[in-house]
């Protein structure tokens, strides 16, 4: 019973709760940007290795699908939070677009990998560079 409760508590740890302070909202935003950055890096690594012929079986497909799913779920969970002040609302507006662009770029890469078209995969992989740079810059700004 205790085990089930603790596992449920851990699983619920990923659910969005209320964020009432600017510091808390900033920390959640930094966490979300970190998740997206990690997903972008995972997808870039997996697909980069695949294009060099270093991957096998379904690992590339799975890595990219999971990266998109992680980024998307982190972004949508962050979007459900109410910014606690005008300053945080401005932060939200600054971050929201680039975060969605990153998720969208991952989605394009996942579709290209599923289609198995090397040219489309290369194009979609190159398409991750800009969102990755933007997310990295924003992440530094929010954490710093």
């Amino acid at each position, binding site marked *: 019973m205790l085990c089930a409760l603790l596992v449920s508590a*851990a699983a619920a740890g990923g659910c969005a709760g209320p964020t009432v302070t600017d510091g808390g909202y900033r920390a959640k935003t930094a966490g979300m940007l970190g998740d997206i950055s990690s997903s972008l890096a995972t997808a870039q690594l997996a697909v980069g290795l695949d294009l060099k012929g270093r991957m096998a079986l379904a690992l590339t497909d799975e890595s990219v699908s999971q990266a998109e799913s992680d980024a998307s779920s982190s972004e949508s969970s962050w979007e459900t939070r109410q910014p606690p002040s005008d300053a945080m609302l401005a932060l939200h507006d600054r971050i929201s677009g680039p975060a969605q662009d990153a998720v969208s770029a991952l989605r394009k890469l996942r579709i290209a990998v599923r289609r198995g078209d090397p040219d489309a995969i290369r194009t979609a992989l190159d398409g991750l560079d800009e969102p990755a740079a933007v997310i990295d810059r924003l992440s530094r700004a929010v954490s710093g």
Partner: protein
Amino acid sequence: MKRVFALALGVMTAIGGFVDVGNLVTSGITGARFGMSLTWAIVVGTIAMTLYGEMAGRVAAVARRPVFHIIRERLGVRTALVNLLAFVLLSLLTLAAELGGVALVLELVTGINYLVWVPLIAAAVWLIVWRMSFSVMENLFGVLGLCLVVFVVALFVLPTDWGSLWHGVTHPWVPPREGHPMYLFYAVSLLGACLVPYQVVFFSSGGREEHWTPKNLTEMRFNCVVGFPLGGLLSIAIMAAAAVVLQPLQINVKHLGQVALPVARALGPVGLSIALVGFAAALLAAAAECALSIGYSVGQFFGWSWGKDRRPREAPRFHLVCLVAVIAATAFILTSIDPIAVTVVSVVLGAAAVPLTYFPVLVVANDRDYMGGRVNRRWSNALATVFLVLMVVTSIAAIPLIFFTKAGQ
């Protein structure tokens, strides 16, 4: 020659058997997030496991009693029942994590969702428990688990900065973005992954299955003293591979596939395939061992006939408990709860429950009525007491850390 072969096989089995889903996941996560700065936790956990594993094996060989038999004798029925319940619940959680882990490996191989694989793997585990002989199970999966040595090979192929890795080992530090609670949570998770109670129960019950006597002590000690530390080295290699490839990219490990990426980078498709075979073998063996340990513990507590090599008609209640455990763990993982989250929580809860299993072993290993002249030496007791105090501190800290860090998220 036959004896050398038996020793080598025993060591390989100990190496392969040491690594399970807890080691794979926690080593991958910590390597990517903390570099090598948590290596000390694997070293401490491995030394403690070696020390207590040797004690449990010695008690099984000399006193001819497995761990849960001793716990009931020494703690009395009521206290031992609490111990049994904690052990069974925790082992069910670990079993669920192992089943989910094998299913995730098959998803990486086939692209088919892991939930489809869970019932099939559960059936395979039950068949292994039911039909495969103890020695075949132990040796086959132990040796296949050695495929994880590809992580060591990968480190030599990758552009590894050995000086930087060593600096991380000898100068542990907390990355600014992580904080001390998160560092401690993952230190506890690594300790818990090395000290999972089911391994001690399985090791000592296995000793009884193989009819160990004092004549087997040298072989048993060799397996412990060489096999477990080499298993710990495998865990460190997985951590180091993640530190070399994933940490610079700031990849936060959330999936088993990410743990294998450093091997793909170093060794390509062949290395990757070997790593996945190693994952599957280590996790499948751990799932079978975990299911058996639940059957062993319940059978030993209630004084039933137990043993893997006994037919279901000779030990019906033992086999029924193993079957029910596999079904319960399968049902739990089929709720679609994330197996990686289950793994992380199970190793930390395991750390909380460790003293319950290890303390009676220490007591009996010092009891001349059971052990005659083969009781613990002074240095061994001093070291075991230090580790026991550490385990108690860890067990007190474990549950608050789960809540405080939201299980490491």
